[in-house]
């Protein structure tokens, strides 16, 4: 991918920037588009479509958020309100039957974007004067205010039950009334591709480049003729637009918007998603959104403790891989360049597989402890990894502890070899 010239994380300096030939620039987008089209043929069920729609919406929202955090260096604790307000506006449009019946549904997210942008214009006019803590705290305050308004200003936000509508009242789009999940899937897919492409292009424009410059060194940027404040402002407004688009898509998908679309929890989640994916790379939030949606929707079907695991994963990411999942992937680029990536495969297998098994063992211990403490008396049986056993007998505990100890032990023992292989794969040849 050519995305790497977008490397913006101070912790991970940029790789070589290639003069992007046309074919290279377009390839990831074409591959992405084809994948988006093909996904429903692999996962045909409606729930898979619903989950994928949720993923794509989160992708747009996270990319929009990263325009602030990753590209502009602005940490926002209240970005959900821009998506939320865009979504609420779309909901009101859905309910304005005269207008809505003359509007093709695929156009609706534009209005969400415009309303998100409108709010960002207002808030940005005073919040972007400073970056850093002042910006973060204003975003928190404004986020809390608007979230609180959602239960007070019932006329617009519908109180705690929110407002709902029916997307099928829109003007049929080439005969399609978007009755089925699959129709909505393609609508969402179209928008995720379009929005991601537009946001990518934005990062290649003068104001997008200067956003990076202002993030790294606002003072120097000022002495290059750019007002740091206005650069931040434009980024903020653009981010508000795409957040609003995500909100509009949410409205189309769920046909209901509630207080939860605005509250600080949602704002916190998008921060988590983005950071997990990696703020330093354009595609980082995409990975984060996909991973987090799976965690939230799929893992929560498997275990009550999903939030505990998500939290652990998150803290571990911040501590050990501040570049996020994307950073982890991009670490391997130099080795690939040197043609030495294959030297890593065997050490990886030797360390990561036992490590993974050890972690699974640890999870098993956590689950068993939880079951032991909180399950109903007499309800001693629990099922874990497709095996059912009695959590009150000693054997499963011994097995779990042994698996954990052996797995982590092997991983620990083989780690130095991996480190060595890693250094070897990254140094020879002398190139960067």
């Amino acid at each position, binding site marked *: 991918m050519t995305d790497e010239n977008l490397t913006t994380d*101070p912790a991970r300096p940029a790789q070589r*920037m290639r003069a992007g030939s046309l074919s290279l620039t377009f390839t990831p987008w074409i591959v992405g588009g084809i994948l988006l089209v093909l996904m429903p043929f692999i996962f045909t069920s409606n729930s898979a479509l619903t989950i994928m729609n949720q993923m794509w919406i989160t992708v747009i929202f996270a990319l929009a958020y990263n325009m602030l955090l990753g590209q502009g260096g602005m940490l926002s604790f209240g970005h959900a309100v821009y998506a939320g307000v865009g979504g609420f506006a779309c909901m009101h449009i859905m309910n304005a039957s005269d207008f809505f019946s003359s509007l093709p549904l695929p156009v609706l997210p534009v209005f969400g974007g415009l309303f998100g942008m409108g709010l960002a214009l207002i808030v940005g006019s005073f919040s972007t004067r400073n970056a850093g803590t002042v910006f973060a705290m204003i975003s928190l305050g404004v986020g809390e205010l608007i979230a609180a308004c959602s239960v007070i200003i019932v006329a617009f936000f519908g109180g705690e039950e929110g407002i709902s509508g029916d997307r099928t009242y829109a003007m049929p789009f080439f005969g399609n009334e978007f009755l089925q999940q699959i129709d909505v899937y393609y609508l969402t897919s179209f928008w995720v591709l379009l929005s991601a492409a537009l946001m990518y292009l934005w990062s290649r*424009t*003068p104001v997008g*480049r*200067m956003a990076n*410059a202002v993030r790294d060194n606002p003072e120097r940027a*000022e002495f290059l003729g*750019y007002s740091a404040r206005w650069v931040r402002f*434009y980024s903020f407004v653009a981010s508000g637009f795409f957040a609003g688009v995500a909100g509009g898509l949410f409205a189309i998908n769920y046909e209901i918007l509630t207080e939860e679309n605005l509250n600080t929890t949602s704002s916190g989640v998008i921060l988590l998603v983005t950071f997990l994916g990696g703020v330093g790379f354009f595609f980082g939030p995409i990975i984060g959104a996909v991973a987090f949606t799976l965690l939230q929707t799929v893992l929560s079907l498997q275990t009550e403790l999903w939030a505990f695991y998500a939290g652990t994963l998150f803290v571990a990411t911040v501590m050990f891989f501040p570049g996020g999942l994307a950073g982890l992937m991009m670490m391997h680029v130099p080795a690939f360049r040197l043609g030495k990536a294959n030297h890593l495969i065997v050490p990886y297998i030797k360390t990561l597989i036992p490590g993974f098994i050890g972690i699974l063992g640890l999870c098993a211990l956590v689950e068993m402890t939880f079951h032991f403490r909180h399950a109903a008396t007499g309800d001693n049986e629990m099922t874990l990894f497709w095996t059912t056993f009695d959590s009150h007998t000693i054997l499963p505990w011994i097995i779990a502890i042994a698996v954990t100890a052996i797995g982590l032990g092997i991983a620990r023992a083989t780690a130095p070899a991996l480190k060595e292989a890693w250094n070897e794969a990254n140094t020879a040849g002398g190139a960067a």
Partner: protein
Amino acid sequence: MSTPALELTGLKKSFGKAEIIRGIDLSIGTAERHAIIGPNGAGKSTLFNLITARFPATEGTVKLHGEDLAGLQPFQINRKGLSRSFQITNIFPAMTVFENVRCALLWSQGYKYSFWNLVNRSRQLTEGADAILDQINLLERRNLPAGTLSYAEQRALEIGITIAGGADVIMLDEPTAGMSHSETDYITDLILKVTEGKTLVMVEHDMGVVFGLADRISVLVYGEIIATGKPEDVRGDPKVQEAYLGAALEAEH
């Protein structure tokens, strides 16, 4: 006489009760290379910061080509054709060398805050940036992150960024600070080359650089200019000798 490129009248600056700049009058002509020297703590960097509106002045005016700069923000001053470098290297370390220069070109090439142009698509930008890189001898480092350059190279890049926007008044704050002799020579040549036909204001400690470069010199002591003139005149000025130069020259030999 034509309008001076930069004109300071009665410029003062106080931090609390301490008066750091105590009334400076200075006029620098177009295409002149002007050096400001003075002992540590004389207020040279503060003076720079006043001219470029990094700090607001307490009193007095700064005029650029006859135009009063009062109330303008740094970026507005930059747009009027005044560009500066910093004493402490001030580049965009996470971006590539090429991008550093390209960012510096954006405003002057009229891109402003546009989001309908793609920077990669502009041949003018790419060529312009490459031309600058060529000038500052960093073309080979083009695609490295600026933070990984050597110190001298970063200083060169800083000068490159400063001149890239095509400003006609260039202000350099100690461009050779902390450099070895060979590096100093390299930077001095570079400055000579890139400020051809432009007004240059520089703060510098290295007397070799100053006397090699400057058309005129001002000596700043305790927030006041005690002498201004051609290098040889300043060198001979007894007040300067007394206040500063003698000691500095002695130290050099």
